[in-house]
């Protein structure tokens, strides 16, 4: 048996394993969408097997795993009465040019006195979120198999996500296709005041679950020797307690229609969203890069969103400096059950006043610089850079009003009746400072 035939036999097994893994992933799911996908997957099993076999058996040259690198980042978000900052560390290492592992630690330290907190009458609060991620990649020929696990913990929220992905280089490495699946399980809790200590404790009588499923397919394509493009489609479906247990909707007070009262939001227990994104990057002849992107989003809650982005990367001659500038525009329509001010309590089955579900636009301007302080190797480090990025984000809400104006005393000249307050808007500053080293 020749080496080629051995390789072909291995590839056939690979293809069958890949197809069966995808079917197994679908089969393990219990949501209505997953059941539909499972039926679809079963009916397409022969096609999936043939496609996988075709993809895998087209291997001619080896693919490439990501470089060995370590990154340490400090991030800070400040805007709308919220400050979030913390570290993030990412390490990735290859082994035997076939395996790659990575680990990421990420932390958010939150201090919040947002408009939602102020409107609810609560005082500023502080909390922390810690997230650990691990991933494993296996490269065989031109096929990369990926597994990853993420765990996120707060005192009142836990989330776990498992992901599986497969990608394949085709047509002389001009094309890379990929597909992936993620399964998430969240636990939603809430904190209450402890009458004994006066502090806050987790409410032992409240614990809710969310199950999440994500299905992705993508293709990246070298179009010319200066242009590459990528198309990605992702379907996400959630089932469970999708509310924020602290957030409220507001309705006109029956005894004084210039004021409002609050009640806990009620959301549907399912949500399915579709997003498709197209990105392209073009190399300019004087060594610079131009990037453009568009994403279309729609979901079963009635939200539609369009995201446009444009970026420019400019290395400064042969110096160690690289500068970046980009602009992002985001435009969203509201969820069907969102209203800034309901006419009365329990007006409809589902009621939300989360500004993330309202109609709004955001503009983001980014500037950034990278400085390579190790360019030609030093010890075991091949290359290292220091980087700083600054984003200015402006959020302009079109049907979310600043309710603080109707909470003022009637005699205050700033007072505005509920429903006629000024529309809310705020700006946020986001800073990222990080060091990257390749080894």
């Amino acid at each position, binding site marked *: 048996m020749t080496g080629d035939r051995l390789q072909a036999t291995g590839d056939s097994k690979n293809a069958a394993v890949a197809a069966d893994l995808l079917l197994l992933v679908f089969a393990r799911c219990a949501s209505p969408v997953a059941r539909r996908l499972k039926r679809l997957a079963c009916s397409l099993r022969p096609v999936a097997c043939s496609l996988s076999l075709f993809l895998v058996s087209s291997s001619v040259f080896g693919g490439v795993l990501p470089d060995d690198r370590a990154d340490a980042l400090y991030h800070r978000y400040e805007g709308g009465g919220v400050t979030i900052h913390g570290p993030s560390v990412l390490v990735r290492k290859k082994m035997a040019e076939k395996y790659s592992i990575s680990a990421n630690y990420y932390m958010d330290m939150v201090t919040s006195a947002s408009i939602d907190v102020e409107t609810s009458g609560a005082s500023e609060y502080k909390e922390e979120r810690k*997230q650990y991620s691990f991933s494993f990649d296996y490269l065989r020929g031109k096929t990369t198999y990926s597994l990853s696990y*993420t765990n996120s913990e707060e005192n009142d929220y836990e989330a*776990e996500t498992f992901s599986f992905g497969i990608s394949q280089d085709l047509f*002389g490495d001009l094309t890379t296709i990929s597909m992936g699946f993620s399964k*998430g399980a969240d636990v939603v809790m809430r904190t209450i005041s402890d009458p004994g200590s006066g502090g806050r404790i987790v409410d032992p009588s409240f614990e809710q679950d969310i199950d999440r499923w*994500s299905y992705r397919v993508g293709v990246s394509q070298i179009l010319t020797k200066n242009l590459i493009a990528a198309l990605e489609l992702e379907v996400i479906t959630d089932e469970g307690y999708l509310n924020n247990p602290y957030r409220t909707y507001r309705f006109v007070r029956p005894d004084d229609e210039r004021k409002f009262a609050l009640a806990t939001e009620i959301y549907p227990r399912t949500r399915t969203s579709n*997003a498709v994104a197209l990105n392209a990057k073009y190399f300019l002849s004087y060594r610079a890069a131009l990037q453009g992107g568009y994403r279309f989003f729609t979901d079963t809650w009635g*939200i539609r*969103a369009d995201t446009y982005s444009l970026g420019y990367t400019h290395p400064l001659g042969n110096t160690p400096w690289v500068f970046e500038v980009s602009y992002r525009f985001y435009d969203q329509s509201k969820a069907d059950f969102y209203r800034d001010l309901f006419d009365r309590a329990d007006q409809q089955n589902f009621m939300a006043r989360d500004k993330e579900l309202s109609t709004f636009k955001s503009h983001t301007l980014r500037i950034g610089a990278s400085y390579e302080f190790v360019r030609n190797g030093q010890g075991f480090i091949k290359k290292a850079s220091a980087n700083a990025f600054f984003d200015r984000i402006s959020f302009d809400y079109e049907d979310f009003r600043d309710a603080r104006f109707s909470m003022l005393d009637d005699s205050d000249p700033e007072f505005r009746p509920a429903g006629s307050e000024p529309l809310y808007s705020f700006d946020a500053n986001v800073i*990222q400072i990080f060091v990257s080293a390749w080894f």
Partner: protein
Amino acid sequence: MAKYAKRERSTNMRPTAYRHPPAACAQLRGALALAALLALSACGNIEPWVKPYEREALADPIMSFDPHPISTAYTHHVFEAREGARGALGSAGGGCGCN
């Protein structure tokens, strides 16, 4: 009435080519299968129109879609926590924990 008559006529006057006899169906399926096979074989033999030695520009680090993965993951999280849209960001996602 004339409109209904016209619709009825157009239904009755369906071209005979739409009513495939079983043999014609089999031929059509065979032709489609052959076309699919040819398309697949053609795919297998596609010559890369950008040769490996012509990819110097594409291999430049500034042409990476994700040159700073640690920063990209954070930036996605910033937007996902404040916007209704989600997904198709080229990442496997993770727990949001943004309540």
